[in-house]
C-alpha cells in the first residue's frame, strides 16, 4: 500500500530573474514500512523535498498524500496537528528545546496534542535509545550522539506515519553515525516504521531499502537495493 505519494512536486524560491527552482516536478511513492534514503549533493533540493513532505513548508505546485490524505489541503492549524501526529522529524542539529529535559523533549508532540503519554512506549524508547538514567538531563548536559537519540525518540514517540530524517548523522563521528543509523534501521524493522532519510553519505544510504538520488531538483535515480 502506498503510505506516501508525492506527485509533481515543484518548489520555486524567489521571483523573476532570481527565481530558483529547488524542486522540479518530482513524483514518487513510498510503501508502508519502507526505508528510503534520499541522496544528492549539497543544494540538490533534497532538504526542500523533506520539508515539503513533513508539512513545514508549502510547495509551489504539486501534491503530497500521506495515507491518502492531501497534506497541503489542510489549514495551518490542521497542519500543526498533522505534524505532531503523522510526522516525526529528525534534524542534523538535533533541534531540541534547550529548557526541556530528555523525557519532556521526547514527549513534547504528545503534550502538544493534549494526549496522555504512553508510559510503556516511552519506557521502551528510553531503553532502546540507551537514555535510561538520563531522563532529567537537559540537552546541554548530553553529548551530540545522545542529543540525536533524544531527537529520534521524539520522532518515534507518536508512532507517526513517517519519520523524516535530515542528515541525522551529519554532525556526528563515525561511531555515533553507525549507532544512529542502526537505531533507525531497528525502528524500521521492529515497529514497521516508515522512514525517509536524507544523506549525502553513500555508505549510510546503503542501509536503506531504496535509494532515490536527487540532482538539480529532479529525481535522477530510484533504485531498490533490498527486499
Amino acid at each position, binding site marked *: 500500500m502506498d503510505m506516501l505519494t508525492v506527485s509533481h512536486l515543484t518548489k520555486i524560491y524567489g521571483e523573476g530573474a532570481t527565481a530558483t527552482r529547488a524542486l522540479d516536478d518530482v513524483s514518487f511513492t513510498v510503501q508502508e514500512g519502507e526505508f528510503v534514503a534520499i541522496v544528492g549533493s549539497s543544494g540538490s533540493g533534497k532538504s526542500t523535498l523533506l520539508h515539503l513532505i513533513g508539512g513545514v513548508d508549502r510547495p509551489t505546485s504539486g501534491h503530497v498524500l500521506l495515507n491518502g490524505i492531501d497534506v497541503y489541503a489542510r489549514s495551518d492549524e490542521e497542519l*500543526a496537528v498533522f*505534524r505532531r501526529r503523522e510526522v516525526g522529524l529528525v534534524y542534523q542539529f538535533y533541534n531540541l528545546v534547550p529548557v526541556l*529535559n530528555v*523525557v*519532556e523533549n521526547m514527549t513534547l508532540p504528545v*503534550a502538544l496534542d493534549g494526549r496522555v503519554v504512553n508510559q510503556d512506549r516511552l519506557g521502551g524508547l528510553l531503553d532502546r535509545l540507551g537514555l535510561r538514567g538520563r531522563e532529567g*538531563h*537537559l540537552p546541554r548536559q548530553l553529548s551530540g550522539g545522545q542529543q540525536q537519540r533524544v531527537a529520534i525518540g521524539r520522532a518515534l514517540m507518536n508512532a507517526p506515519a513517517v519519520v523524516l530524517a535530515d542528515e541525522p548523522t551529519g554532525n556526528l563521528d563515525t561511531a555515533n553515525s553507525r549507532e544512529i543509523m542502526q537505531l533507525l534501521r531497528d525502528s524500521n524493522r521492529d515497529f514497521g516504521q516508515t522512514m525517509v532519510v536524507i544523506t549525502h553519505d553513500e555508505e549510510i544510504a546503503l542501509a536503506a531499502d531504496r535509494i532515490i538520488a536527487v540532482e538539480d531538483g529532479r529525481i535522477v535515480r530510484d533504485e531498490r537495493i533490498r527486499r
Partner: protein
Amino acid sequence: MNAMTTFTIKSLRANKVRTLVTIAGVVLAAALLTAVLTSYTSLQAMLYEAETRMAGTWMAEVQADDFDGLAAQAQEAEAAGQIADVAYLRDAGFGELAEEQQNYFGPYLRLADFSGDIETLCSLRPSEGRLPEKAGEIMLFDTWRTAGDGMEVGDTLTVPVGERVAVLAPGRTGSMVHGEVPANGGFVGGMEAAEDEIAEGTVLDSSIGYLDAALDGGIFNEELRVTGERTYTVVGFYDNIPYVASHGFGMTAFTCDSPDDELTGLNRAYVTMAGVDSTAAVEQRIEEAFPDRYAELHLGLLRYMGVRTDGAIWDTFFSIAAVLAVVIIVACVSLIYNAFAISVAERTGQFGLLASVGASRRQLRRAVALEAFIVAAIGVPLGLAVGIGGCAATFAALGPSLATIFGAAEVGFNLSVAPWALAVAAGLTAATVLFSVFVPAWRASRVNVIDALRGNQSARASKRGAARAARAANPAKLWRGRGIAGRVFGVGGLLARINEKRGASKGMAASVSLALAIVLLMTAGSLSTFLGTLTKVAGGPADAGDVGVVAMFAGDTTSSGDGAEGADAAGNAIGAEGADAGAAGANPAASADNEPLTLEAVVAARDARFAEEVAVYGKAWEVLKTTPDAEPVGWRLDGGVPLIVPEAMVGDAFKADGALHGGRMADGSFAVMGSVVYLEDAAFDRCVADAGLNPADFHDPATPRALGVGKAYGNNGAVYELLDVLTATGTVQALTAGLYEGEAVSGFAVAYESDGANGGGFEFVPYVFEADGADGGMTSNLDPADVETATTPVEVVAVLDEAPELVGMYGESVQLIVPMSLAATHSLGIVDPTFRASFDAPEGRSGEVGDDLVDAAGTFFHDEAPFEVAFLAMNDYAGDAASNQTLAMVVNVFCLLFTVILALIAMANVFNTVTNGLILRRREFAVMRSVGLSNRQFRAMIVDECVAWCARGLVPGVLLSLAVSWLLWSAVSGSLSGLPFAVPWAYVALAFAMTAVAVGISVAYGMHRCKADNVVEALRMDSV
C-alpha cells in the same frame, strides 16, 4: 579598512531597524540631556541679565573712609588686571526732610556722589531726564515727581544738609558695637563684619542703618545735626531701586563732582573682574588689591554667573533637576545597553565564526567598540542639535511667559547655549554608550567558538534550571500539575512556565525595561501632579470681577493696633484670634463730659460711626462707577465679628481639635470669630431670591437677618480644604461691645482656657488697647467676669452652600451676609469695616484700570472723606489669573514635553527588548512548530510569558516609581509646606495602559517576525 571594520559596518547596515533604534536612543539621550542643561543655562543667563539690570554688574563693593587711598589701590589693581572696572559712590551728607516728606521718602534724603560707569556697574539708570553731569545737579527717586508738591526736571531743590549723630535713648548709658547688617539678605553677604563703635555723639556714616532703640533693641536713637543748606538742579529721576540706592534711612539722591568739603563719611568702590571662577577667587583678588578693607560680594550675581550656587530656591531646583537627571540617565543607559546587548547576542554565531577564522578577543571587542563609536558619532551630534532645536522652539513659544514668571519680563527668556553644557551632554551620552557597550563587548570576546559554531543554544538554560529539569523526570508526572497557567493556556502555558523557571534570562531584560517604563511614566506623572498642585496653590480662589478696590479708614483715636497684636498679647491662650472689631475708635469716652459711660452709648456711637463710614463708601462707589473702562460689578463692606453660635448650627470644623477660629464654650454654645459682609442691597436681594426667600423679610432694622455661608476654606491642620462651618439655620449672637470699669473694651479674642471652671473650653477674652507713646502701644487682656457685654441677635435664615459671587471667595470661618440697608442702624460691633468694590475691565487692561480706580478713590477720600485712610489698594484679579494661567501653561507644556520624551524612551526600550527577546528565540520556536506546536498554542505560550514579564516588571516598577515620586515630592515640598504626598493614580493607570500597549505591539511584531520566518529557514539558522 581592515576586515573587522568592514564586518562591523556591514552588520550595522544589515540590521537597519536595530541600528536606527539604537541611534534613536542615543539621539534621545543626548537631546534630553542637552535640553535639561540648556534650560538650566538659559535660565541662569536670564537671571544673570535680570540681576544686572536690577543691581548692576559689580561683583564686589569695597568700603573705605579715605577715598584717595581707595582710589589709588583701585587704579593700581586695574592696571594690574586684578579688576576690570570700577565706579565710586561717596557719602555726601544727609538731607533733612519735613515730617510729611518722611512718609514718602524715609527719614532722610541720602546724598551720594558718584563717579565712573555707575549706569552699568550699579544699574543706576534715569527713567526720566539724565544722570547728573556736573556739580550742583541731582537725580531723585521717581516718587519725588508725584509726592507732596511734585518735582520736575529743571526744578530746583533746596535742602538743609547735615550729619547723622547717635543719641542715647532715654534712660540708657554706654556704647555699642554696631555690626554691619546686610541691607538685603539675598543680595549681599559680608566677607567679614565691619564693626563700628558707637557712642553718644558718634557721627554715623551710610553703612550704619537707622538707629531706633525701640525698634532695633539697641540703646541709641539718632538725630540729624544740620550743618548747612544746599541747592541742586534736578536733572533726572530713577524708578528702579538698585542695591546702591536702597537703604533703611531713605531713598538716595545722586549727584556728582561735589566739592571735597561735602564728601564726608564712607566711600565705596564697586568693582568688576574678569576671569574669576569662584567666590574664593573674587575674595582673594579683593584682599590682594584692597588689603584690610571691608568688602561685600554681589552674591546674587556671582550665583547666576555660575561662580556660586546655593540658596533655598536653588536647592529645590537642583534636587528636582538631580532626580530628573538620574532618571534620564538610567533610562538612556538602559535603552542603549539593551540595544547593544541584543545586537551582540544576536550575532554570537558570527563572533564564533570570526573567532574560528582567527579573530582575537581584542579584535572582537574592538568590533563592538567600533559599532558603538559609529552609533555615537551619528547619534550624539544629532542629539545635541535636536536638544538645542527643541529648546529654541520651546523658548520661542514660551519665552515671554517664562520671563514673566521669573520676574524678568524686560530681559526676556532667550536660548543661551553654553559650550560646557554641550560638552557635558555629549560626554555623558558618550560615556553612556561606552558603558552600554562594555559588557556586551566583554561577552562577545568570550564567545566559545565551538558553542557559537554549533549554534548550541543550550546555554539558555540556567544551572538551577538543570536541577529543576532533573526533578521533573518522573514519567508519571510528565506535563502535569503546573497550576493555573496550564489550565488557562494549555501546553503553551506549561511551556512558558517551564521556560520561565529554567531559562537563564527569564525575560529579565524585558521585565527591567517594563519596570523602567513604569518608573519613567510615573516620574513624569508625579512631576506634573506636584507642579500642578504648586500652580493651583499659587492660584487660589478668585474674587468677583477683574479688579477690586480695597480700602479701610483708620480709627480716630489710634493709628495702629490690629487684631493680630491682640492675639499675640493673649499669650497663654491656645488658638487665640484677635478681633478686627477691636480698634478703640468710636469710643465715646473721648468726649469731654464725665457722665458714666453705658454699654448702650458705646453701641450707639459705634453704629453711628459705622453709618457715617457706609455713607462715605456709598458715595465713593458712585464716584468709582464713573471711572472710564471700569464696568461696575458690585461692592460690599466686611469686618470681623465675635459670634456666639448655638451648637445645633455649627459644623464639624469647630468641633475638631485645633480649630483656629473658635470652639465650644463652657455653656455648650460655640465661640466663633466670624465675619459679617454687608452686601449692596440689589446684589443681596438677588442672593435671597436665588435661595428661594423673600428679600423684603431682610430689611427690617428691628430684626437683623442674615444669610450664612456653610463652608469655609481653611487649613484643617494638614492640608487646605473646604470645611463645614455652618450646618443649620438659627439665631446667633453678635458680641457688639464690652464695658470695663466705665471704659469700652477694644475687642474680643477667642481663646481656649484650659483651666476653666468646667474643665476647659473656648471663651471670648476682652482686651483693651492702650496707646502708649513710648513703645507704640500694647494690649492687655481682661477677665471676662469683669466685663459687661452687649450682644445683638442675628437670625440666620438660610445656609448657602457657597458664597455668592460678589462675596467672592470662601471665608476662613463663619461668614454672615446682611443687606447694606442694615448698615444704617447696625454695626454689629464692626469698627472701621473694609470696603471692597469690584469692577470688570477690558481684557489686558485690568492693571491700568485698577490704578485709575485707586487714584480716583484716593482723590475722593482725600477731598470728601472726614476720615483718615488707613489702607487703600487695588487687586488685579484678572492680571493675577492671567499670570497664573501663564504659569500653569508653562508647567503643563514642560511636563508634556518631558512625559512625551520619557514615554518615547520607555516604549522604545520595551519594544527593543521584547521583540528582540522573541526574535532571538525564533529557532527554538521553529523547532516546536516543526514538531507540531500550533499557532494557537504558540500565541498562548507567548501571551503567558508576557504576563509573567509584566508581573515581574510592574511590581518593582511601581515600588521604584513610588520612591522616585516621593523624592520629587520632598524636593517640591522643600519650598512649599503642606503639600500632601499623593500617589498619581491616574498616571499609574496610564503607565500600565501604555506599557501594556507597548508590550502588545512589541509581541505582535516579534511574533510576526517569528512567523514570517519560514520554519525551514529558522531551523537552518543553526549554521552561521
